[in-house]
């Protein structure tokens, strides 16, 4: 009997990807540009989901792999069963983030995404300088790229003032009722 709380059941239900169709050919892992750096490789994650073992599912949500995925879609384009693995990873990331299970080594990646959304929420468009400052403050990577910024500025690639959209109200409405904001 299928347990409705089971992660693999939910993954299939929400993403429409039938995990059981994976027959472990390993093409996704072989072509993955960050496969060598992953703690759990894509094909291994698919197998772990098939196991329907709660402990293994927990391990996936706490893995580095789901955050290392670049969504380059190479796995999906080469899968003989046409399984949308990036979509499965999207779901796993959302769940890992909302349940506060982000791997400690992946926090910089999540911080960057958060700083990015903060910058967009403020102005409606991304202001690269604000993004970098927000990221530095949240991660304490204060000296990263200090050489790059002045050179970007001199080449006209970095503006001091942000561009702001007019429809601020409409924008604010989109940012309301989203995932609970979490402290990293």
């Amino acid at each position, binding site marked *: 009997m299928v347990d409705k709380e089971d992660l693999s059941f939910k993954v299939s239900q929400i993403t429409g990807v039938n995990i059981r169709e994976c027959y472990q050919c390993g093409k996704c892992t072989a072509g993955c540009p*960050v496969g060598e750096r992953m703690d759990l490789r894509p094909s291994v994650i698919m197998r772990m989901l098939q196991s329907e073992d709660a402990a293994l599912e927990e391990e996936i949500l706490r893995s580095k792999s789901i955050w290392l995925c670049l969504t380059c879609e190479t796995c999906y384009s080469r899968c003989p069963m046409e399984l949308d693995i990036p979509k499965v990873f999207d779901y796993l990331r959302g769940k890992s983030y909302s349940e506060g299970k982000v791997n400690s080594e992946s926090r910089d990646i999540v911080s960057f995404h958060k700083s990015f959304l903060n910058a967009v929420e403020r102005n409606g468009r*991304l202001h690269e300088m604000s993004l970098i400052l927000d990221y530095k403050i949240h991660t304490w990577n204060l000296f990263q790229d200090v050489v790059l910024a002045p050179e970007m500025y001199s080449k006209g690639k970095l*503006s001091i003032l942000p561009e702001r959209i007019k429809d601020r109200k409409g924008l604010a409405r*989109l940012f309301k009722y989203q995932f609970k904001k979490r402290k990293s």
Partner: protein
Amino acid sequence: MKIGFYPGCSLTGSSREYNESLLAIAKGAGVELCEIEDWSCCGATAAHNLNKELSLSLPARNLALAELENMDELVVPCAACFNRLVMTQHELSEKEDLKKQVSDKLQMPLKNNIKIVNVLQFLEEHIVPRLDQLVKSPLTIDVACYYGCLLVRPQKVMKNERFEDPMLMDVIMQKLGANAIDWPFKTECCGAGFSVSKTEIVGELSGKIVRNATDRGAKAIVVACPMCHSNLDMRRPAINTYLNMKMDIPVIYITQAIALAMGLTPRQAGIQRHFVPVNLTVNR
């Protein structure tokens, strides 16, 4: 026919030269691009990774604005923005109830049927047919056309038959007089959004691309994506660290290549904004 234009945030900042060169060639070819009034960010990888709802509503806002302005098609030069807009349109076209939710939240009608085109599709349709007349000073160099991920994948949505070996950019470069080399890294990932948070991964992935293009004799890498450009050009120090040698190969946008072949000055093409110096006068 009204051709809409969604620049996206990168084109107003770190990839300003992509915007400048695209607008310059469109003007030169007599094609008018109408920028969407009050466009906003597409949410990029950040919304896609952290917030499903925003990853749909942010792109949809721009689609709805383009519809309000009666645009027949929408040109999206940034490959990442293009991917987010197309994927949103695709997902909302499959789920009517979700489309309604998004439209309600936007408080804007959303037909969700505008034709979205990336820069290569735009060039193929509007610029390539006029190239014979437009090309004034052919580029006589060997180039490596680099497509990256988002111009070819996901294959199901992009419907690109040659997703491992696309040729669109190669064909355009040949028409400009260049020789597009055959090489295996055309659609490998450059490291995308890890430029800041995992720079060493970008150094490795982009390093392999730059090394292979150089080894195969290319004198320039041609791209059509701001993320690919900034990783291959601006992140050259990280690439050099990974490869343990200094790589000199320049990286140009396809729109800059066309601008130069049309006889526009390097400054009009925005060449001076690059980190790796560009010298395309080296003849074969």
